[in-house]
Every structure is written in C-alpha cells, then in structure tokens.
C-alpha cells in the first residue's frame, strides 16, 4: 500500500486530523490498535467544564469521517523505518505501507498508580483511580465501596504521577485538577449525602470556565479543598482508608477517615508513543513525551523530517488543546506534502 500520510492513533487528534487531511485532498491511512475509535475520550462520561457528553464528541467525529478513508482497526505497528524520504510501516497483519509522511497521534496512558505504593492502590480495597471512577460514571454503575456500601466520604488526591520528581515526572498533567472538581461535583450529584474532599498542592484552573466550575463546586456542592499533599494512607479493619496530610494553610497535620479514595492519575507517554520514539529516533522532552522542533513555532514538527506529532503524544493536553493541535498538525503536513509534490 502506498499513501501520502499515515495517521497513527485513532483518538480525537487522529480522527480530526485524518478527516481534515483527506478533505485537503491527501490520501490518508488511519491506524488504530484497538477495535474502536475515540481513544481516551471514548472512555469518558461527561466532560469538564460544561458537562457535555463525551460520546457526543466521538459521534460528531465519526459522523464526519469521509466515506473512503482507509481505517485499519486492531492494527499494531510492528516496525517502522525511513528510506529515501519514505516511511515503511509493517503491521501485525503483515501489511507494508509506504508513506510520505507520518502523523504520530499515539496519545497518553494513565499513570500506573501502583508506583505510588504509599497511597495503597492495588493494596487497599477502596483506593481507585480517577479513570476507574469515570468508567463507573460512564457505565452507570452504582458508586459503592468494595464492601458494597454507599460511601459517605470520598477523597480526591491531586497530582498522582504528576509534578513528582520521585517518579521522575516533573510536568503538570493539566487536566487532573479540573477533572477532580468535575468528579467531586458528580459524586455529590449522585450521592447527595456524601462529603467530598480534594487534596491539592496547587489548583490549576487555567481554562475557560474552569474557575467557574471550581466556584460552583464549593458554593453549590460544598466540596472541601484542603491544601496538602497526601503522604501515606492506611486501612482500617472495615476497609476504610485513613489518610495523613498536612493542612498546610493551617500548618497542622490532619488525619481523616475516608470510605473511598480517588487518585487523580496523570498522563504518561503511551506505550505506542515510547515505541515510536525508539523506532524513529525521535527526540523526547523531560517528561519522555515526543519533543517538538520548536514549542512555539514548530509545535507539530519533530526532529525527523516527515514525522509530525499531534495531541498528547507531545505533552499533556485538554480536549480543546488537542483539537487545536491536531488542526495545526494538518496544516503542517499539508505544507510538507505540497512542497514535496512541487
């Protein structure tokens, strides 16, 4: 198979870019390793900050996919190499695709919370990740502890796997703060008699309407924010979690018993991103994501000519930022392909 551009990753960045590139007249092949499209967004229930259904975004993207776009589902790349300005991609179906350019939209994985052992993920029954909570929302599962009770006190721990030199992730994952606020509100909506607490180092409410959501969570839903990083958690006999933090604004240690603890896991480069960094000799930045040639001017270009990057493969991004990034990548690839044709 021969093509102009191969888009690796069928998340929102990949879908948006494939459609736009196709509409600009380029031949596009979209490769996705899972059997469904939509990436992480497809796993979300409601989106911050305006409570929009995540599925509506995926539906929109799918509805606008061109009829004759080649989409290879359940397809994994086994090898990729560059020869004479062309890339040769081998897949698990033993296809070989020759392409003039590659768009890496391989996204992120959620941080493996086992690595912060002191928080007790995988050890205590009622410590879950934000991704798992979102999945409960998405599938309309009742919010229950492992013991089958409705939790009356739920804690959200910010910055798990982000801004942490101990695990060599120095970066901020950007979306966890506002996700915690969103999820705390949802918990309060579903369980009106529960208490929700957020334990944060800094609250980064940078986006449009984020601050409003934060205000609403306090004003309307009574979410309590405690500035202090969780140091350790222990478990009681009946499966509750005792957490130790410092209430740094009061300057006193604080102990609290939780029915459920939600770890706001950050973003780490996905396995696919790391694989491509290796295979294509891409430069990576501090967080091990793919490094842009220039973070201001050439955000979608990489150190390898013909390889472009979009979405969270280059750094943690919100959905809005990912869309903007995907569109800017389309323009970069369009310029690259047109200059090659001439």
């Amino acid at each position, binding site marked *: 198979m021969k093509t102009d551009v191969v888009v690796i990753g069928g998340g929102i960045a990949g879908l948006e870019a494939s459609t736009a590139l196709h509409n600009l007249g380029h031949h596009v092949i979209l490769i996705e390793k899972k059997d469904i499209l939509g990436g992480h967004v497809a796993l979300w229930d409601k989106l911050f900050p305006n409570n929009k259904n995540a599925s509506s975004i995926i539906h929109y993207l799918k509805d606008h996919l061109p009829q004759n776009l080649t989409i290879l589902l359940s397809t994994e790349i086994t090898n990729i190499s560059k020869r004479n300005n062309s890339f040769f991609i081998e897949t698990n179906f033993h296809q070989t695709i020759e392409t003039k350019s590659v768009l890496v939209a391989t996204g992120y994985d959620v941080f493996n919370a086992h690595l912060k052992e002191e928080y007790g993920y995988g050890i205590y029954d009622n410590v879950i990740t934000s991704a798992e909570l979102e999945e409960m929302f998405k599938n309309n599962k009742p919010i229950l502890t492992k013991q089958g009770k409705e939790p009356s006190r739920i804690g959200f721990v910010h910055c798990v796997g982000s801004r942490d*030199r101990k695990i060599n992730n120095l970066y901020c994952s950007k979306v966890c703060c506002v996700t915690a606020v969103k999820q705390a509100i949802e918990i309060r909506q579903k369980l009106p008699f529960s208490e929700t607490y957020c334990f944060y180092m800094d609250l980064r409410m940078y986006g449009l309407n984020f601050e409003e959501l934060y205000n609403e969570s306090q004003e309307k839903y009574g979410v309590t924010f405690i500035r202090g990083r969780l*140091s350790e958690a222990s478990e009681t006999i009946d499966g509750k979690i005792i957490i130790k933090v*410092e*209430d740094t604004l009061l*300057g006193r*240690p604080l102990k609290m018993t939780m029915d459920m603890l939600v770890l706001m896991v950050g973003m780490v480069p996905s396995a696919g991103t790391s694989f491509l960094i290796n295979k294509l000799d891409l430069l990576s930045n501090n967080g091990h994501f793919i490094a842009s040639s220039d973070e201001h001017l050439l955000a979608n270009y990489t150190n390898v000519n013909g390889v472009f990057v979009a979405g969270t493969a280059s750094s943690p991004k919100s959905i809005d930022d990912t869309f903007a990034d995907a569109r800017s990548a389309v323009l970069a690839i369009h310029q690259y392909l047109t200059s090659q044709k001439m």
Partner: protein
Amino acid sequence: MKSFQYLKKIDRTIDYDNNDRALFYYLMRVEPTVALCIACGACTATCSAGNFSTLDLHKIMLSIRRGEKVYIAKEITQCVLCGKCQLVCPKNVNTRGVILQIMSFLQSSQL
C-alpha cells in the same frame, strides 16, 4: 495613659528588611535543594516526630527563606532525622541534609 496596654503594637509582622537570612544563603551554598520546596506539606504529614510535637518541616523551610531564625532554632531540636520526609518529598529536597546543615549552622553560630 497606663491603662491603654492593648494599644501597644504586638508585632507579628515578618520583618523581611531586617531579618538575618544568613542561614538561607548558607543552605543555598551547601544544600541547594532547599530552594525546591513548594510547601506541599507531605513531609509534615508523614513526620515521625510531628505526630507528637509541633515540628513542621514545611514551616521551617519557609522560615529559612524569611530569615525567621529563632523559630527554626526552637523547632529543629524535635527532629529525629528518621528520613521519611525525604522519601515522600515530591521535589526531591534532601531534607535530612538540610536539617543536618541547619543543626551545624546553629551550632557554630551559637544561637
């Protein structure tokens, strides 16, 4: 006029202009990780001595920068150097090194 005791100014201001920040400059030279602290409080939460005493490492870290030497000298004696703070610090501050340097600085300055 003697009955107006309450009018006497109780000064709780951190007198930044006049505080002696020699300890901070000393630490910046011998243990520069001291500057990485963002006062998240994980150290205080996990502190072995903090369970029973007023020891609060993040306040000490802030006081170092503000030059509040008397507070530091009073509080630091409660530390048992167990090192848990170092294991939980998200910024990799070499906390035991900082505390040891504070102790030896105070020892040599006879405070």
